[in-house]
């Protein structure tokens, strides 16, 4: 590695957006705790973007921790691995918080499990050496990422190896590692940056090498100075840059991050790859380091259990496939004023009630909101104030899209670029008439897709 000094870009940002209350105070100072090993996990075959994975075990098989349970069903797919040692049970069906019904492979714990500090050291702790990363074969790195079943841990769950497979037509010159964590309440990425900054840096160097990128930049919002400090120390001498960005929602969205750090505009409907960029979350980077340097698949992740409706907010290292209920119970249970349980953060997360659903690779947190958080004024007429226009980070006119959706006018919706909306929620958050704009945009998108099928 070139021993250049760590550079810092400061104060980057993007146009529009909103400032929801941050509420990181519930869990930001709680060190990552290791969740006791569960008696059972359920692994959904589809917990990523792409094709479902295909089981390679059958009921009654004995599996060791880390054994493959299912293999990727296509190029854009990801395999699954057993987070615990145990016995495979009969395939079942479960409803995930995003309302999808998916097939799950249950595993009943059996035998000795890795627990406590030993488990933490295996996943995030211990030594992370950067030596030899620059000499590694790029293809081997992507193969290891694919074999470990790594997907984006920030929530999107897009299979990571797809982004870093070299593509001569669209080369990647810059890798952005996303430590913004702009969703209110959530803190898993923050804790990973504080407690395992060297794992994040090692993973960043690995994907930079895999993609053949000249530049690697880790972006963090300026409300996390301790994380910036930790990363700066861990990245000293590696040539990685740290970009400190203004705190604004949705800074952690790919396109807004690329705009803020590199001032490049990703084409509407395009991918970061179109502007020579690949983006991964800091938690994903740590998982990549573990996969490539330690040969371990993605079996655990850090989840925040937070919000005013939970008794003891915590950051937990949990096996994928454990139920939401166990996490909530481990955090002291719900308070009587709990009003809504959200998988993920309050801006883009899914409210759900099936607490027996399993945590997946993309679950970054459980946010329990109270009546006071979700109280909302009654919907009134649009006063055409234009605040939704001022809020939309994509530069859309949400009120017109909503109008088009209500009138089922597909042409009008497309004239207003409905498909450019990524459902960040800024417009609904800000609307003084409490109009469910995002919900209407979703309806409109369904209408557009239906009309294109005909």
């Amino acid at each position, binding site marked *: 590695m070139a021993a250049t000094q760590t550079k810092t870009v400061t104060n980057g940002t993007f146009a529009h957006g909103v400032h929801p209350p941050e509420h990181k105070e519930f869990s930001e100072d709680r060190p990552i705790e290791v969740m006791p090993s569960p008696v059972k996990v359920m692994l959904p075959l589809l917990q990523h973007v792409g094709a479902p994975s295909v089981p390679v075990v059958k009921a009654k098989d004995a599996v060791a921790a880390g054994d493959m349970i299912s293999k990727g069903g296509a190029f854009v797919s990801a395999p699954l691995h057993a987070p615990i040692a145990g016995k495979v049970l009969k395939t079942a069906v479960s409803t995930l918080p995003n309302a999808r019904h998916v097939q799950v492979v249950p595993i009943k714990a059996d035998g000795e499990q890795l627990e406590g500090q030993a488990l933490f050291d295996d996943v995030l702790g211990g030594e992370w050496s950067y030596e030899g990363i620059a000499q590694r074969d790029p293809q081997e790195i992507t193969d290891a990422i694919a074999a470990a079943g790594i997907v984006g841990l920030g929530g999107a769950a897009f299979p990571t190896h797809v982004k870093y497979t070299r593509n001569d037509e669209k080369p990647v010159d810059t890798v952005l590692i996303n430590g913004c964590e702009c969703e209110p309440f959530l803190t898993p990425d923050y804790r990973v940056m504080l407690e395992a900054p060297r794992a994040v840096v090692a993973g960043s160097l690995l994907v930079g090498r895999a993609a053949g990128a000249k530049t690697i930049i880790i972006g963090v919002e300026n409300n996390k100075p301790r994380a910036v400090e930790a990363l700066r120390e861990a990245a000293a001498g590696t040539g990685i840059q740290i970009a400190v960005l203004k705190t604004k929602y949705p800074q952690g969205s790919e396109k807004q991050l690329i705009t803020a750090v590199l001032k490049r505009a990703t084409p509407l409907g395009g991918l970061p790859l179109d502007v020579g960029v690949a983006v991964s979350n800091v938690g994903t980077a740590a998982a990549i380091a573990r996969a490539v340097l330690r040969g371990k698949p993605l079996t655990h992740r850090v989840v925040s259990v937070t919000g005013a409706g939970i008794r003891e907010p915590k950051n937990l290292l949990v096996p994928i496939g454990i139920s939401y209920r166990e996490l909530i119970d481990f955090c002291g249970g*719900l308070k009587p004023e709990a009003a*809504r349980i959200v998988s993920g953060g309050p*801006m*883009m997360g899914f409210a759900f009630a099936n607490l027996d659903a399993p945590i997946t690779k993309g679950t970054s947190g459980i946010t329990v909101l109270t009546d006071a958080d979700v109280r909302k004024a009654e919907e*009134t007429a649009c006063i055409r104030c234009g605040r939704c*226009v001022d809020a939309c980070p994509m530069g*859309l006119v949400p009120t017109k899209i909503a109008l088009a959706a209500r009138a089922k006018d597909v042409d009008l919706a497309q004239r207003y670029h409905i498909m450019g909306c990524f459902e960040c929620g800024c417009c609904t958050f800000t609307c003084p*008439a409490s109009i469910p704009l*995002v*919900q209407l945009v979703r309806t409109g998108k369904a209408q557009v897709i239906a009309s294109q099928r005909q």
Partner: protein
Amino acid sequence: MTEQTIDKATLSETPAPVIHVSPSPHLADQSLTTQRIMLDVVIGLIPVVAMALFVFRLYAVKQLAISIVSCLVAEALFAKMRGRELPLKDCSALVTGIILALSLPGPAPWYVGVIASFVAIGIGKAIFGGIGMNIFNPAMVGRAFVMIAFASALAASGYQDVNSSVDAVTQATPLDTFKQTGAVAPLSALFLGLTNGSLGETSALACLIGGIYLCIRRSASWEIPAGVISAALVLGGIANLADMDSGWTVLHHLFGGSLLFGAFFIATDPCSSPLTPRGKFIFGLGVGGFVMLLRLFSGYPAGVMFAVLLMNSLTPLINRWTIPRPLGAQ
């Protein structure tokens, strides 16, 4: 929205919370409601109302009382006729009433205010389907109707009552005086508002204080007054240069008449102005431009009203011209 009670197993004690499931986002900016925006407008109008009461005394009390009561009654009545719930709590009828009163001359007879209010709420708003559906600024619709129906009460001479005990009302309005005689009112009197005119328009200072409050609270979009003022400065400046010795300077244009009142309180009505920042600025430029044209080339005293109504009618077009370019669009 569906509701479901989580079984007690997950709880260490009763009662079990009721869990709501609803689409994201799960947070809303609770400080920001239509009612709050309208309330802000009322707060922003306080300095203007205070100045009107100070300068015009009982004239102001009378017009405000008549218009506010009539607007509220009209709102209730039309809501009832359309079978709607009483929408008074959004405060918009109150705002219409105050603005209407402030745009009338003090000596105008009582029925002018009553009729203007009913037209404002009925034709200006209710027949379009209520708040948010109206194309024109309701107060200005009411004002325009009485302007035509009672032309003499609202013509330049309607502002003046030589026998009045209130000083301001005994004089002709500064703009009219200038038109007729070329005499220029002192700038300080225009700025403070110690001159005759519609109740709310005379004090530039009061309009600036209230208007800046509105813009800081973002309850009015600053782009609109910025547009109005820019147009007035440019056109006023040109007129000023063309006729250097008239003494009626750019600042007289800015502080005289209802330009600032219109810029901050009338043109900024969200329902009847464009959606995008660029559109709002264009709208403001248009309002300011028309006010100046009417002022420079016609003796008509109600330039702001016509300028706002005209630009209201162009708003759908401006919206179409100013669709913003999405991030990353070609």
